[in-house]
């Protein structure tokens, strides 16, 4: 059987603080996890994909022909090519991103935070914001100010806001389940996977939680000090971590 076609390829070579990141990643699975300890460079990779690292050089970032271009036709005109150096401003990338820190807009209600992206797109798509509110069980909180939310509630709004971005071709989630209780996390994972699968949106998430990686049953890139150590299914790549956890429980 041949390997599935990649939906996104990325080569990144950059220095961020003390870390030198040098990775080449080919994403084929519906859900891919960048797994590693804090400070290994996994969040930086997500920010580079979004275009939030102005000095990061991304080479050969492209989508598979089957998936179409990752950037909207209008935005392709904005691409400035300097050799292979790709400079597309973040707002022109069809990439949804939920950062590790929720960073909710404090002057907007929960509903307006979630509808922020759809209100920018023409025609407006309020239905998507409603679906995201339902997906993350936020209807009861929709008129609240972010200042009146708990940590877990803020994180759900953060995720819902990314999921409510129209025209998304790639979903990036940085430590998406931080602050959520395990019961809710276990409920949300299949719903999120279903939502993304229904729209053919691949997802790349970042975690250092073995349990979460195994639960997602995703493709895993194991990263340390800005380099890829291993790549494969979660159960294979994280087998040693799983054994260590089981031993700790005995």
């Amino acid at each position: 059987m041949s390997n599935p076609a990649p939906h996104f390829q990325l080569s990144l070579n950059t220095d961020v603080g003390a870390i030198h990141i040098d990775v080449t990643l080919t994403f084929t699975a519906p859900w891919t996890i960048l797994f590693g300890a804090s400070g290994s460079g996994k969040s930086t990779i997500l920010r580079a994909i979004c275009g939030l690292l102005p000095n990061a050089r991304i080479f050969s970032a492209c989508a598979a022909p089957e998936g179409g271009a990752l950037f909207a036709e209008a935005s392709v005109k904005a691409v400035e090519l300097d050799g292979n150096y790709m400079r597309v401003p973040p707002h022109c990338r069809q990439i949804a991103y939920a950062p590790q820190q929720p960073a909710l807009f404090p002057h907007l209600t929960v509903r307006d935070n979630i509808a922020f992206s759809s209100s920018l797109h023409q025609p407006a798509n309020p239905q998507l914001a409603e679906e995201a509110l339902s997906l993350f069980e936020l209807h009861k909180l929709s008129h609240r100010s972010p200042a009146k939310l708990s940590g877990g509630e803020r994180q759900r709004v953060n995720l819902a806001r990314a999921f409510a971005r129209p025209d998304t071709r790639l979903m990036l989630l940085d430590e998406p389940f931080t602050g959520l209780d395990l019961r809710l996390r276990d409920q949300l994972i299949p719903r999120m996977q279903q939502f993304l699968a229904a729209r053919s949106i691949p997802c790349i998430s970042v975690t250092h939680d073995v349990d979460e990686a195994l639960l997602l049953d995703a493709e895993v890139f194991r990263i340390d000090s800005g380099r890829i150590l291993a790549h494969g299914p979660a159960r294979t790549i994280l087998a040693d971590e799983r054994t260590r956890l089981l031993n700790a429980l005995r």
Partner: protein
Amino acid sequence: MDLAALGLTLRLATVTTLCLLILGTPLAYWIAGLASAKTRTLPRRIAQAAVALPLVLPPTVLGFYLLVWLGPARAPGRALIHLIGHPLAFTFSGLVVGSVLYSLPFAVQPLVLAFSHVDRNLTDVASTLGASPLTVFRRVVLPLSRTGFLTAAILTFAHTVGEFGVVLMLGGDIPGLTRTLSISIFDQVQELNYTAADRTALALVAISFLALLLVYWRASSPETAVV
């Protein structure tokens, strides 16, 4: 009290405030480093120091330079005279130019402070949600900087109401045209008319106190807190 001077002072302060909010906003946005993550720091610090110059320079120095450079003796002044048909010195427009430069830090610094307090993560997230830089400014930065705009407007207005040196150097003391309240007080004291000077001074104290009260009252608003 010299009502003509009061009217002229309020008109000058209003026009200066509007001009500075329009000109100072993009300048402050750039100095605060929100316009682009790639902007280098040195040019921004140089601009910040230049903007703050009127805070430490004697107003007469600024007035003198403006008088010379806007007059027929220098190329910029000659170009301006060619363009508008008369020199800017001793006109209301000249007073506006002088006031805009003299009050520049009072508008730009509160705006820089307000923009600097907007969490970079908020603008980053907004851009990944599809907001262009202009939309990020309009939908995120502007609402979170309202207090800064109000402070800038009030301080600029109050500072322009009270300016003396630049106005005297650049505008002279022409009744109804360039004589502001502060110059009117000077004239009244020169004429030993202390009763009139007292009333005018009291009016300036009241305007300035109300302006500062508004600033401190609004500054206590916690609306820029980031969640």
